[in-house]
């Protein structure tokens, strides 16, 4: 157990090793560790953020769903109301149209009746005239007689 140059050799070795470790080993490793720590922390934060966002989105989705449900209900109600309105309208329209058609038909019928009656009157007058002519035969002044007969016809007409 002699103390000798080994002492100095060991000291030099010690300093060289410590220097090497300090220069080339410690910094890259601690950097990597720090970086990983940061990445993990970032990842955790991102996950938390994502969860929060998901929760918000879910809330938004339920809200939207609720809104759309009420809207759809409104729309259905409105359209039902509108449909019944349309039906009512159509009913009343058809009723008035029917009445109108009925009235027109009645008026036409009356007109027809009138015309037929006129025709009848005229024919009766001609018949009467012919009959009278046949009866009288000789009463020749056709002009005065026809005038007389026209007046008669008018009187009938008026009556």
């Amino acid at each position, binding site marked *: *157990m*002699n*103390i*000798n*140059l*080994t*002492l*100095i*050799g*060991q*000291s030099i*070795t*010690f*300093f060289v*090793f*410590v220097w*090497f*470790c*300090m220069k*080339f*080993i*410690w910094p*890259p*490793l*601690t*950097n*990597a*560790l720090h*970086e*990983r720590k*940061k*990445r993990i922390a970032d990842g955790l934060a991102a996950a938390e953020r994502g969860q929060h966002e998901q929760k918000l989105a879910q809330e938004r989705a339920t809200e939207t769903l609720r809104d759309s449900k009420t809207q759809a209900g409104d729309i259905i109600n409105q359209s039902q109301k509108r449909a019944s309105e349309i039906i009512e309208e159509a009913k009343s329209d058809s009723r008035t149209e029917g009445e109108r058609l009925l009235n027109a038909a009645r008026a036409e019928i009356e007109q027809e009746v009138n015309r037929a009656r006129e025709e009848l009157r005229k024919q009766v007058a001609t018949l009467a005239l012919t009959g009278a002519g046949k009866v009288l035969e000789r009463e020749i002044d056709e002009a005065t007689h026809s005038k007389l007969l026209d007046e008669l016809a008018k009187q009938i007409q008026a009556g």
Partner: protein
Amino acid sequence: MASSEQTSGEYIKHHLQNMTFGQHPDGSWGMAHSAAEAKEMGFMAIHVDTMFWSISLGIFFLWLFRKAAKGADSGVPGGLQNFVEMMIDFIDNSVRGSFTGKNPLVAPMALTVFVWVFLMNFMDLIPVDWIPSTVAWLGATLFGADPHHVYFRVVPSTDPNATFGMALSVFALMLFYSIKVKGVGGFSGELTLQPFSSSNKIVMLLFIPINFLLEFVSLIAKPLSLSLRLFGNMYAGEMIFILIAIMYSAGIGLGLFGGILQLGWAIFHILIVTLQAFIFMTLTIVYMDMAHSEH
């Protein structure tokens, strides 16, 4: 295994002798062929085995960790990467726990000290005859040396030169940072103005030599205790392994008993190996902290 030509005493002595290269008293340089020759060389000698193993193990540590450091990124770590990062984390926590100053040197130094000392201590767990016998055979075959005079110690931390070398380096750094942080005045004040102090100037003057004596002793005790603790533990551990190894040449019964003893001691020694490395590192951090903190 003690060979038949050796007594137990010679076997132990042979195992405790370093391979020494140095200057012979006549001025020539060469290997020491005996313990006496090594002693005669005095300071101008170097323990080849201690230096070889400490440098090899240190380079192994640096290579391994450098490999991990090169591949280090913030992605998913592999096996080696994981192990190295675990070590870094462990050292970083130790340094954070004990070191309050700010110095980028301390943590890498703690890492180097821990792993390096651990590896050097770990050599103790290799059966005591394996490497020395191999080296003796190599020496006899390649250099024609007498195998009984080829000395080889495998555990650098059982060489006080190695432990003192490291402890004195730590001590030098401690003095350097003490003076750098506190200034010459602050540091000498720390050595002379406490633990006893007085508001009376004359009494204070009397206290100064007493304080200096106390503080100087405690200062010197730091590198001494640091190195001797490691050296003592490892030396004793190695000694016990050597004593157990002697039993192998004393018949089958004692040999088997020795085998069991060696296994038990080796398992227990794993604890000592790690613990001593850890203590050396922790004390290094604590001494550096003392150098940085003001009283």
